């Protein structure tokens, strides 16, 4: 038998058939849907006179376009209200589980999937959202799809995909103080570039990864897409099994034992071949921040924006355009740059551990007067847990604005928009032009750096206040 990667094993186990000189037909175990990318897919089904093939494998939530205040009231904006109503109607009609606003399971699709045990090792998982790669932290094949593909999976529980190439990224060693998994992934993307992973499915390995919690692993897999990769995954281990035990939708009792046996078989064979390999040393990673308009434009917070002469010829133009948009200059220091907003949330860093990190850092301090800080939990459960642990009291005392769950300023579809020209330190995943609102300028960073910046009002290395 030839040695195989974990990716190969899961892919092959889901292969229904292969089209001659064409894509593979893959069976999908879990399909997650939300209000923005599903309505046209349901409409397409209807047009073809089809029903949903396997409604029990689908889970729905309303997250992208919902308000993060007064969620008990009807949604004020008409278009958003319609979108959410349409989702509810489609789910009811087709018998799909929906965890909508005010449901105890409500939250961002990539936060609730893992939290409820819907996400499990060895599965194939898709969702009409590119950060579906988050779920790969459990050792499954999870990737984002477009609406035609959503329709495809609704109709047949299958998807047609070209087999991607495989890449292994190994990170070994102990992390420096103040360095989080967000810094690891921002560092990797800064090294490989925003398109460095295109065409690949990444497996993350190494001692640094194995030492991370499930939530920290999710942050890494989440941003795999920001280097263009189709997805990222991490082989399951004791930390994964412990996390899944007793979750609502995870196998229970005897089934858990059986599942465990299967999950333990999910690893890359030692002789297996990857199309590409990269190695990083944890010690070389420092707290990171982005200065430009794609997530690959990141530097250590103590560093300076590169000089034009150090930028490869073919990237000079986009580098200059990015700095112009950001109102920054080559060679500038990032530290000390005045900021206006801080956003803590999203499927990258909106989990309970992120809120704990943030709250622990700001405890006993006060928010800088002229900075607006939005703290948006990734799910209802995260919100409740944060309350239970007294985090909300700490945060309220420090003067922060605590919201209700949703994608919020990560993509600024609802009213949580950073105004034009303003600077925001954000724990989310994209710093594209206009991503957080028309004209908004985003610095991506970890929850720790977000905490430091909300206290000083300027970009600050987390270690400087400790």
């Amino acid at each position: 038998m030839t040695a195989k990667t974990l990716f190969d094993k899961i892919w092959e186990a889901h292969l229904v058939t292969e089209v001659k000189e064409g894509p593979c037909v893959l069976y999908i175990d879990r399909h997650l849907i939300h209000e923005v990318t599903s309505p046209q897919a349901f409409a397409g089904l209807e047009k073809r006179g089809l029903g949903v093939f396997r409604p029990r494998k689908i889970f729905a939530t309303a997250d992208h376009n919902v308000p993060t205040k007064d969620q008990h009231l009807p949604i004020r904006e008409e278009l958003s209200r319609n979108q959410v109503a349409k989702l509810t109607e489609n789910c009811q009609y087709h018998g799909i589980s929906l965890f909508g606003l005010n449901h105890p399971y409500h939250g961002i699709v990539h936060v609730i999937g893992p939290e409820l045990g819907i996400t499990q090792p060895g599965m194939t998982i898709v969702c009409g959202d590119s950060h579906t790669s988050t779920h790969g932290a459990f050792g499954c094949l999870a990737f984002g799809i477009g609406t035609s593909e959503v329709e495809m999976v609704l109709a047949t529980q299958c998807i047609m995909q070209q087999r991607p190439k495989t890449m292994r990224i190994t990170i070994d060693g102990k992390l420096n103080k103040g360095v989080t998994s967000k810094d690891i992934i921002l560092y990797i993307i800064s090294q490989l570039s925003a398109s460095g992973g295109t065409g690949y499915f990444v497996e993350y390995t190494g001692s640094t990864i194995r030492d991370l919690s499930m939530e920290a692993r999710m942050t890494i897999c989440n941003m795999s897409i920001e280097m263009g990769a189709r997805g990222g995954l991490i082989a399951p281990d004791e930390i994964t099994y412990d996390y899944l035990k007793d979750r609502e939708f995870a196998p229970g009792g005897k089934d858990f034992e059986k599942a465990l046996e299967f999950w333990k078989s999910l690893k890359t064979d030692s002789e297996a071949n990857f199309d590409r390999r990269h190695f990083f040393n944890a010690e070389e990673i420092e707290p990171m921040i982005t200065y430009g308009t794609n997530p690959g434009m990141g530097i250590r917070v103590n560093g300076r924006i590169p000089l034009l002469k150090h930028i490869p010829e073919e990237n000079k133009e986009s580098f200059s355009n990015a700095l112009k948009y950001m109102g920054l200059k080559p060679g500038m220091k990032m530290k000390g740059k005045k900021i206006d907003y801080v956003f803590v949330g999203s499927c990258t860093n909106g989990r309970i551990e992120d809120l704990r990190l943030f709250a622990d850092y700001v405890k006993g301090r006060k928010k800088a007067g002229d900075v607006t800080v939005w703290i948006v939990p990734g799910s209802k459960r995260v919100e409740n847990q944060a309350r239970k642990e007294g985090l909300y009291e700490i945060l309220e005392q420090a003067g922060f604005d605590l919201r209700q769950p949703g994608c919020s300023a990560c993509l600024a579809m609802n009213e949580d928009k950073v105004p034009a020209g303003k600077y925001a330190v954000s724990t989310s995943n994209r710093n594209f032009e206009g991503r957080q609102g028309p004209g908004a300028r985003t610095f991506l960073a970890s929850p720790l750096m977000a905490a430091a910046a909300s206290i000083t009002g300027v970009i600050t290395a987390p270690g400087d206040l400790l």
Partner: protein
Amino acid sequence: MVKEKFTTLVSTCIPLRIDNIDTDQIIPARFLKATSREGYGNNLFRDWRFSSENVLNRDFVLNNPDFKGRILVVGKNFGCGSSREHAAWAIFDYGFRVVVSSFFADIFKNNALNIGLLPVQVSPSFLTKIFNQIAEDHKIQLKIELNAQEIMILKTGERESFEINQYKKNCLLNGFDDIDYLLNIKEKIIEFENRKQYIWLK
């Protein structure tokens, strides 16, 4: 849903010589609130066409009446970012049928092919040639022949072949899509389901 068959297209082009154009540029998230597939063309490249005060940006190429055509020519790594198919819809809805670049983001490429918008990937040097030709004379035309998998600058006769998956090519040439294909093999899918071992995966 593939809307129309694609065989050959001859057209002038609209050049957008920018790398890493992401899906938030193609169609900003705040315009994704509709529940239908149509009408997104109005907001294609919205934040480049209009300033934040909603003033028309005359410098932007889509607002320049000299440039017309059904082919969009863009810099490398086009369509990176979100999986939103709305990005491909917006380009299609605006009237484009082909996007030419030296590199496409994965999901965008899939999405485009799924709706009948043809992504043509050319070499970086051929892309530069096209941009330079358009700069000299914005009336020049490109000819794209899907069957021959060839792109040609009509004026100079320079040509290059491009890759496309044979299955996808057939879909475009015949105007059918993946769902048609999958519905045809439904029995195989059910057979596959019955073979699955683990109940929690069933």
